[in-house]
């Protein structure tokens, strides 16, 4: 098929699509963070807009429901002055016969410039990026269990804001690693940016085979896993995991892996607590931790807008324009 080695970069090494953290050099990730920094202040202005993508059409193409992620992408696009179309395409609609490719071609006919895609199948964003015309950029807003790169970037953006640098940090990701595209992207982002150590903490049923080959340390005991870490990232536990014999009950999960203040005391005193949201209080995280002073969960949401503005503007070749706007 003659697939390009790196689908995401132009021959000039500029970002074209943003599909996975894997395959992107550290310099590109740092560029995204620096660009996001320049956009951070836009939300604090009286007029929360910059004209970088004026006249461009961005299509949010969500094959899986997600109010939260879609809303922040929409807000990011609007702050860049782009026109935004939202399509929530449920599985039932596509099963009526229209193929993914047909859907794409219809939207291309509306002269879109960018697709922001969420899909239940791993590799869906790759597939779409390979099948769109040259001028369209694709941003992955989550594909199956594969990747959720903008979430990972907003997480490392939040971490950088708190610690300034990555080299000395130990980070623990706790929860359903097996089914988590967020965890996979976080692991790639953290290891690429050169943190000291990344740990994953979960029972064996929720740890995918061969995860240590991604450069992480595996723990099954949360207290040992959290010992001495700077950042604790909790993952959402989906209720359907009880039926697949992954876990006996939410109650036992919270008892064994839920983040409480007592367990948080194993981490460094300055450690921050993160969560991609939406949180399940009393399942993976206790309310007093989620609402506590070490929690940066709401900061993550705010940072998500700036990071998505950065990725969108860079993919559209408005990298330099973004810099000038600062």
């Amino acid at each position, binding site marked *: *098929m*003659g*697939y390009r080695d790196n689908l995401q970069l132009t021959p000039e090494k500029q970002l074209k699509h943003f599909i996975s953290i*894997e395959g992107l050099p550290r310099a590109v990730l740092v560029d995204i963070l620096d660009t996001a920094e320049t956009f951070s202040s836009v939300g604090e202005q009286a007029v929360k807009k910059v004209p970088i993508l004026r006249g461009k059409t961005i299509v949010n193409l969500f094959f899986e429901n997600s109010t939260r992620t879609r809303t922040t992408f929409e807000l990011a696009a609007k702050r860049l002055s782009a026109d935004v179309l939202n399509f929530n395409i449920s599985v039932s609609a596509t099963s009526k016969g229209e*193929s*993914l*490719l047909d859907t794409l071609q219809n939207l291309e006919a509306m002269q879109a410039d960018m697709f922001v895609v969420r*899909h239940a*199948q*791993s*590799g*869906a964003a*790759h*597939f779409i990026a390979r099948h769109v015309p040259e001028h369209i950029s694709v941003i992955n807003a989550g*594909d*199956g*269990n*594969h*990747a959720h790169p903008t979430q990972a970037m907003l997480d490392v953006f939040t971490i950088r804001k708190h610690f300034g640098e990555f080299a000395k940090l130990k980070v623990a990701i706790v929860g359903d690693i097996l089914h988590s*595209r967020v965890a*996979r992207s976080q692991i790639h982002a953290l290891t690429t940016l050169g943190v000291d150590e990344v740990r994953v903490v979960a029972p064996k049923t929720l740890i*995918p*085979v*061969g*995860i240590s*080959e*991604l450069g992480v340390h595996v723990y099954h005991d949360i207290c040992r896993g959290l010992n001495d870490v700077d950042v604790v990232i909790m993952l959402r536990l989906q209720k359907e995991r009880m039926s697949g014999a992954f876990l006996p009950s939410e109650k036992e999960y919270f008892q064994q892996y839920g983040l409480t203040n007592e367990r948080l005391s194993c981490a460094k005193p300055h450690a921050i607590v993160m969560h991609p949201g939406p949180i399940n209080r009393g399942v993976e995280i206790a309310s007093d931790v989620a609402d506590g002073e070490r929690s940066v969960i709401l900061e993550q949401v705010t940072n998500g807008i700036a990071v998505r503005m950065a990725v969108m503007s860079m993919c559209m070749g408005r990298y330099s324009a973004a810099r000038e706007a600062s």
Partner: protein
Amino acid sequence: MSRVLIQNGRVIDPKNGLDKNADVYIADGKIAAIGEAPVGFSADEVIDASGQIVSPGFVDLSVALREPGFEYKATIESETRAAVQAGVTTLCCPPDTRPVIDTPSVVESIQQRNEQAGYARVVMIGALTSGMEGKQLSEIAALKAVGCVGVGNGVHAIKNALVMRRAMEYASSHDMTVFIHPMDPWLAADGFAHEGAVATRLGLNGIPEIAETIAVSRDLALAELTGARVHFCRLSTAAAVRILSRAGFDGLPVSGDVAAHQLHLVDVDMSSFDSNYHVIPPLRSQRDKEGLRAGLIDNVLSGICSDHQPHDVDAKVGPLKDTAPGISGLASLLPLTLKLVEETSLSLSDALGFITYKPAKVLGLNVGAIAVGDSADVCVFDPEACWILNEDTMISRGKNSPYMNRELVGKVSHTLYEGRIVYRS
């Protein structure tokens, strides 16, 4: 019937240990002589095989013809024509047509269609259970009577061990080999990639190695109990090869084969999410690939097959999980087999054995050799000729191959089936 002389070739007949430069004389659909011309032989046609190999026509253990039921993917005519272009003169069709091959009438209709096409010998594996539903036995004796070479349930595992036990007992009562695609359906779950670091990285649901080894182990135990002759199709793991090897030492009448692509491709090749690499069983690890090759070298495995599964274009368009598994593999069978000669300790004759007399033995057929008196199923090929597999050079209706637009080495120039030239390049 015409008389053909194949001149100046290097004749390799692995079954009979023949490897020499000789002329091959064909008359009345049979090999009349090798070396000296029979008295009074005058050729109607002479094939110059200088610099080429003259081999028995290949025997392919699995070629999905898609007819009846899936004519939009391929037909008996299109795929048997693709077979002889690839040097395959005998092919075995799995039972997963629509309707499935579970009654004599389906067998006979495929036989009739194939006789009209007239390119190659088509034999069939009948469905082990009615509709391949894993519940009720099909009429195995009736399927045998119309020519089925064995029975199997395609890729649909028989979950219920009691049904499998009775199926083996009944099949062996009628001296029918049971063909099994070993995969535990619960362990495989909704997987479609090899469970390991690559699938983890790509977020693809994995099929663990143990899904294959547990299935092989269960069915070997049942084979030992029932005395059934069992053939394991498309083994994909080194561990399953080791288990099969031990069963061979124990003297069980068991055999196994491997798809040609499993000997060359691994899970890492899926990294670009290219649906042409989506196969079941999945492409496994480098270690498994080496283990499968060792299974050939140690003669644990009895065949290399194309596992030919032609698809329509739409079947392969979409995110990986939504695409149909399978490779249109006929065209790459010989090149991939020859590549083993380059990359392993197998000799050319050894390698050809795995696509000629050894799979013929699995099917219980007296083909795959070219001694005097044998059916003149012959393939003449240039082992060093390079060619590009593309839409133009590929005869199969299914263009779904990971080797598309790649250079392959080893090209068939002539194929003879029962003494008739059915393909010439």
